[in-house]
């Protein structure tokens, strides 16, 4: 439902501003133009998205994804000590992490939910500190190769779509750290 509001507000605001600025002709043309741009964008990035979806599938089939996730196990054990003591929760967490690293959002969500449901036992509808941390981790992007963004860049004529990688990694790491720090600080004041 949220998107219904967002879209309606965007369009109504455009109509109001267009009327106030005397730009209604441009607004009318823009609506059609925007829909056409969606076709161009999808065609422009379609090839890149298919290629990278294939590579990510390959990485998860040959076990590279699991190996990657194993590197993060010490970190998971520190962040979610209670959850990682339960082997089945830990397995789901680890698979969720590797899917997130590969940017397989569709695979990551059900795995993360499986972990979250196990962690929510006995919480009686109130999020525990570990659950909050798990969700904060999942709302922060830890994708190694932002393939969709690279696809958009390629569609917009970038000379080297992946040259933003170091910047994306730096910003991602700092953003996750900020989220976990904020959670740690708020944990003390925001008791269950």
């Amino acid at each position, binding site marked *: 439902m949220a998107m219904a509001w967002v879209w309606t507000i965007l369009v109504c605001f455009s109509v109001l501003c267009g009327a106030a600025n005397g730009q209604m002709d441009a607004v009318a043309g823009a609506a059609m133009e925007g829909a056409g741009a969606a076709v161009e964008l999808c065609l422009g990035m379609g090839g890149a998205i298919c290629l990278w979806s294939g590579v990510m599938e390959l990485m998860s089939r040959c076990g590279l994804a699991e190996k990657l996730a194993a590197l993060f196990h010490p970190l998971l054990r520190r962040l979610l000590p209670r959850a990682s003591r339960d082997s089945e929760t830990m397995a789901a967490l680890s698979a969720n992490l590797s899917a997130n690293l590969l940017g397989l959002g569709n695979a990551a969500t059900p795995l993360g939910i499986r972990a979250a449901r196990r962690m929510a036992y006995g919480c009686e509808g109130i999020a525990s500190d570990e659950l909050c941390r798990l969700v904060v981790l999942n709302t922060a992007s830890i994708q190694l190769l932002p393939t*969709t963004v690279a696809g958009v860049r390629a569609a917009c004529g970038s000379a080297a779509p992946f040259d933003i990688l170091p910047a994306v990694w730096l910003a991602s790491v700092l953003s996750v750290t900020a989220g976990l720090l904020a959670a740690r600080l708020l944990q003390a004041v925001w008791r269950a």
Partner: protein
Amino acid sequence: MNISSYVVPLLLALTAIYALTKKVDVYDALTSGAREGISVLVRIFPALAALLSAVYMLRASGAMELLTAWLAPAMELLGVPSETTALMLIRPISGSGALAVGSDLMATHGADSYIGRVSAVMLGSTETTFYTIAVYFGAAGIRRTRYTVPAALAADLAGFVFAAMAVRIFF
């Protein structure tokens, strides 16, 4: 000659070799993954068509400039280009909405421009926060989410600020 030009070709070659040694059918994995890619495109296209129309209307009406000018002092304080205001506002709410706004920024300013790069890094280093929170806590039957929303939004804000900073450092 750029070192980063090696990353993608080497990644493709080494993954394929590693997968072959693990007796994985490389070609089958690639093509069935690509089929998954098609379904991703098919799924996001309707949303992109609706949202890009709205974004184009917003820009043509002059509303985008109004919003940008209004929030420019705050953006300057954060050290992010004010052109990315709309992207930052929609990012936590809608993934395809952010993709629509971000791709529009990249197309108008150029994918390799400062603004284009900052938009791309912002998209790549943040997530659709509210959607994720709703899905996880909804599935786990959690009603009181405590400090999750402010902490997750702090992560988003940090992601935006550091995206602009990282682009200035690396380019």
